[in-house]
Structures are given as structure tokens and as C-alpha cells.
């Protein structure tokens, strides 16, 4: 790490050659680790995040996503590994010296300051002129549609408005990376959808680099350029939403993002699995050896109903539930204990008790080693 000390405190431009990997990136995290007692909260997580990227840490409680974020922010110090922001190693720096932005789930607006005073606060810390502060605060509030609340106190605002103010406060000083810890977690569904759109819009307009933590898959899919799916302190897969959805690398990812159906069977060739229920399912090419126990994973939306003789398996329709334009169908394949879930357009819904076949495009079927996850 000794090279770091000779580096400038300012963000180095990406063109400067540097021995530290990811020096030009807004953020690079290398093998950070954190344990609490016997529990490993974060286990050697590494990642690089590019300028203007919207990255989400997605995982359930205890997956290590928040701890990772807190280590980047400086509220938690890693035991090993390093965190480099804009070419500067900040691993051991106090939060206030990292120059990042943070949006908290609980807003944490200063109750004794008005909205504009809250947004002006970080600018005052940076010693900007009064004129400059006024202009920037005005612009930022304008952009977030908060101008008319400038003189209000936080407690006079709704939750959604408060979180908008918190967002303004975190981006007004243009930090290289803005960290957001489940910022919409305390809001109701409708408001959450609305604010998601808004956060995405502002992030695109200003080209912000954002790291966002959530446990909500939908939110992650809507917002992110890339998603790091976390489990047990590790990153299972760090990819674009489409890749995660279409080419999940682990059963966990397939299940967590798409609630995939898992169909047990035995690998027959490099593009087919013989299911335990009898039929042969054509799958995407894979590298498992023939004869290995495996599970084929298909998202509910990628299965279709067909005539019994055309499908890779047959079964009886158990339930049919209308949810808007889609219909959720469960089908119990012959000889199976568990049902298969489908989401199909309303017009093509079978009736309860029908005997039907199931088909899927081989490109939509992933296969995992039967013993994994």
C-alpha cells in the first residue's frame, strides 16, 4: 500500500498511470472482510464501480450488503482489504474525510434547520461563498421539485419529501460516489415507485455514481445498471439485470431474482436434461458431465402451456389466479410433489383441472449441479 502515500489527495484523473488497480475508478473495493464475533458479515468482497454507474447491493437481511456499504462510507472499518475512492485509499479514514455522499433510510434531516439550511450545510462545511451556496441550493431544490418547501422544517414534510431533501443534501456537493442505504424502505409502495423513477432520472441527468442497498428485487431491477446479489457475506453474482435474470450463475440468484422453478433430473447430453418426472427438457448449453444429478431452472414467465403431448412434461392445473393482465397458474406435474408456477398472458389461461403440457425455450432454461445451493 505504500504507493498510495505518494498519490495526490485529490481525485486523480483516469489517464494517470497508477500501480493501484482501479485508481481511476470512482470506487474500487478489494477483498474487504468484516466479522462480528463468530459471524462473518462480509467475506472478502471485491468490486469495481465505474463513473456514472448505478450499482445495487441486493440481498436479504444478514447478507452483508449494508455492512459493505458502511465500510465504504467509513462507519464500519474492515479488518482486511482496501477501499479506494478516486484513486485515494480511504480504508482507514474517518467518514468525514472520505468526501462521499450518504442517504440514510431514516432520512436523518437536521430537525433544527430548514430544508434549505439542511441542503446548504455540506456546502458551508466546504467554505463556499454565500452567493454560491444560495445558487446551488436553489438549483438542487428546483431539480427535486422542492423549491416551495425551502423554508419549511423537516417535520412539516411528508416522508417522501423528507427523503427527497436528504437526496438533495447528499448530492449538492457533488461527491464522487453517493451511497444509499435502503432510502425508500420507510415509504409506502406507491411513493416508492414514484421516488424510484425520480432517483433514476436525477442520477442519469447528473451522471451520478450511486451505490444503492436494498432487499427488494424489483427495486434493484428498476434502478440498477449492475446488481451485486449478496448472500452470506459474499457476492453471488455481479452483473446487469438482464444477465442476472437470463443467465443466473447460481440457483440462489435464479431464485432470488426470478423465483425460478427448479426441476430435478439427470444430465443427458450437453443440451438436455432427463427430468425425474419422465420427459426430456432441452436446455441452454452447459458444461456439466452427462449422468450428473442436476436441477433445471426456469422463470415462471418463461414457461408456456401446450397440448399434453407437445410438452416436456404433463400435469394438472391446480390454481389459476388473475393478477391484472397476467395469470398465475400452478400446475402439478405427474409424479411430482411440488407444483410448477407459471405467469402467462390472461388470454391463454387454462382452466382448473385441465390436463396440459409444459414447454420452454431452451435458451431460457439454466441448469445447476444438483447438489449446489
Amino acid at each position, binding site marked *: 500500500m505504500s504507493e498510495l502515500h505518494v498519490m495526490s489527495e485529490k481525485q486523480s484523473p483516469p489517464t494517470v498511470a497508477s500501480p493501484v488497480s482501479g485508481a481511476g475508478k470512482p470506487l474500487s473495493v478489494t477483498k474487504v472482510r468484516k*466479522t462480528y464475533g463468530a459471524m462473518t458479515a462480509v467475506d472478502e468482497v471485491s468490486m469495481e464501480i465505474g463513473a456514472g454507474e448505478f450499482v445495487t447491493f441486493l440481498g436479504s437481511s444478514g447478507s452483508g450488503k449494508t455492512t459493505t456499504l458502511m465500510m465504504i462510507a467509513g462507519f464500519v472499518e474492515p479488518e482486511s482489504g482496501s477501499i479506494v475512492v478516486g484513486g485515494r485509499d480511504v480504508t482507514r479514514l474517518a467518514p468525514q474525510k472520505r468526501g462521499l455522499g450518504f442517504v440514510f433510510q431514516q432520512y436523518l434531516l437536521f430537525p433544527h434547520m430548514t430544508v434549505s439550511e439542511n441542503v446548504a450545510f455540506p456546502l458551508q462545511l466546504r467554505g463556499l461563498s454565500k452567493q454560491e451556496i444560495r445558487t446551488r441550493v436553489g438549483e438542487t431544490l428546483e431539480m427535486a421539485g422542492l423549491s416551495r418547501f425551502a423554508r419549511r422544517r423537516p417535520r412539516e414534510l411528508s416522508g417522501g419529501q423528507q427523503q427527497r431533501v436528504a437526496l438533495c443534501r447528499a448530492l449538492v456537493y457533488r461527491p464522487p460516489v453517493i451511497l444509499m442505504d435502503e432510502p425508500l424502505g420507510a415509504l409506502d409502495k406507491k411513493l416508492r415507485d414514484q421516488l424510484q423513477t425520480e432517483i433514476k432520472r436525477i442520477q442519469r441527468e447528473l451522471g451520478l455514481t450511486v451505490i444503492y442497498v436494498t432487499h427488494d428485487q424489483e427495486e434493484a431491477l428498476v434502478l440498477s445498471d449492475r446488481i451485486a446479489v449478496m448472500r452470506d457475506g459474499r457476492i453471488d453474482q455481479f452483473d446487469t439485470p438482464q444477465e442476472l435474470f437470463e443467465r443466473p450463475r447460481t440457483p440462489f440468484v435464479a431464485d432470488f431474482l426470478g423465483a425460478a422453478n427448479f426441476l430435478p433430473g439427470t444430465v443427458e447430453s450437453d443440451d438436455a436434461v432427463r427430468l425425474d418426472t419422465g420427459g426430456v427438457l432441452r436446455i441452454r448449453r452447459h458444461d456439466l458431465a452427462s449422468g450428473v444429478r442436476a436441477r433445471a431452472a426456469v422463470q415462471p414467465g418463461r414457461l408456456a402451456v401446450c397440448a399434453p403431448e407437445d410438452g416436456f412434461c404433463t400435469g394438472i392445473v391446480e390454481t389459476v389466479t388473475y393478477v391484472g393482465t397476467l395469470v398465475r397458474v400452478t400446475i402439478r406435474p405427474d409424479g411430482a410433489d411440488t407444483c410448477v408456477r407459471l405467469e402467462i398472458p390472461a388470454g391463454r389461461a387454462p382452466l382448473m383441472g385441465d390436463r396440459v403440457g409444459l414447454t420452454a425455450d431452451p435458451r431460457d432454461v439454466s441448469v445447476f449441479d444438483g447438489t449446489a445451493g
Partner: protein
Amino acid sequence: MAVLAPPPEPVVAAAATGGWRRRLSGRRTRFGLLNATPVVVYLLVLFVYPIFSTLLLSLKDEDGGFTLHWYADALSGTSLDILLITLRISAETSAISLVVGFLLAYWITRLRPIWAGLVMLVVVVPHFISALVRTYGWIILLGDHGLVNETLVALHVPGAPFQLLYNELGVVIGTTSVMLPYTVLLLYAVMRGVDRGLIAAAASMGAGRLVTFFRVYLPLVAPGLVNAGILSFILCLGYYLTPALMGGPKQTMVASLIDEQVMKNNQWNGASALGVILLLLTFAGLLSLRLVKSVSEAAKNRGGA
């Protein structure tokens, strides 16, 4: 979809053995010690040590040797009478405060919030006005020609005017008015915590008013009642002002005796022994409070299991 809605992750886990965490917790500990030291030293010097020296003094005879005769003195003759009077007046006061406070606190819980707030104001404001001043108010009120007796005479109440001052009645009236706000505040806090649904549930099962009251409501507020009773009893024990001003010679309480021993008779050892007895009585009260608390908590846990 696998719907997961977990609570936020415990970022700052309580159990922290990581090196950095330990260093931080060390810093937090040092920070705490640094801030706690002044007040602890202050109270050790100006509160604990003086009480401790009182204890020592009460065990010393004139030559500096060990003796228990100050305690023997304190527990015999007029001194013993005064102790018993103190206990009796304290018991009377706390009992009356409890009953009256219970009624008032209950009434307040039944009022609309705005009225409850106003009534609480009438209860709380006197609490912050010098007891000396309130006692003086009672002296004016209860005198032979005070408002109370004048009213009674005007109403042709037989026997009026009554002797209301410089006797036990006067003392109990005075001390009760001082203790009552305390009792009401404590009881009100407990009563507000009672789940109204339980009362309704009891009634829905066919329990009559009395049964509901004695079997459901009273047990629910009982810990609060005991708490308030013991606390006002303890506070009464060492009370000085009102008995000294509104009582006669027969209503001398321990605090007055201590004052007299120190100021008039220069008898510090005897005063110390009385002080220690008062202290022990207080500790006994606090201990029983603890006991009641742990018993009721144990009962609650058993009920919950």
C-alpha cells in the same frame, strides 16, 4: 417471487470482538469514564462521604471508642415515641394520598385529553411550588379564623370552629398535600398503561363491575399502587417542614428531633444515630420496592410462558 422483507441488518452488532471495534469500544469507554468521573467524585465527596461520616459518628462515644448507646438512646424514651409518631404519620399520609390519589388519577384517565392535560397541570404545578409556601397557605386556611373554619361556622356545622392546626390532623393535611402530586403522577402513569381492551374483555365474558374491578383492574395497577405507597411513605419519613410548622409538640417527627439535637443541644452523635435509623428505614422501603418489582415481574413472566 421470493418476497423477503427483512428488518435492516444489524450494522453495529452488540457483540464486537473485531480489533477496530474493540479499539472503538475502548475509546467509548474512556470517553464515558472521563465524563462520569466529575459527578461520581462530587457525589462521593459531598454525598456518600458525609453520610458515611454520620454513620461513624453515631458509633463513637465521647472518647472516640465504639458504642451503640446512641442507638439505645434513640430507641427508647421520648426519642422512640417520636420515631413511632413519625412512622404513624407517614403511614397515615401515604395511605390517604394513595386512596385520594387513586381516585383522582382514575378520574383523569377517564377525561378527554385536553381536560386531562389541564387537570394534570393543577396537580403538577403545586409540586414545583415550595412546600414551605404551600404549608404557609394551609396555616392561613386552617387557623381558628381561617377560611375553612369560617365556612364551617357560616354553615352552622355543630362544633365549629374546629382545632385544625398544631395537632395530628393539621400535620396529615399538610403532608398529604405535599405528597399527593407525587402519588397522582405515579398512579396516572400506571393507569394509562392499562390496556382498556382487557377490561372490555372481562366485561364481555360476563364479569360484573366489581369482579372486573377487583379481579382485572386492581391487579393490573397493583404494582403502581405499591410503588406509590412505599415511595410517599419513604419521603414522609424524613419530612420536616410541615410537621414543624403545622404540628404541636406531640407531632414532633424525627427530622425535627435531629434538627433540635444539632442546633440546640449540640448533640451530634445522637442526631447521627437518628439519621442512620432514618436511612435504614429508607433502605428497607427501597428494598421492598425492589422485591415487589421482582416478584411482580416473575409473576408476569410465569403468566407469559
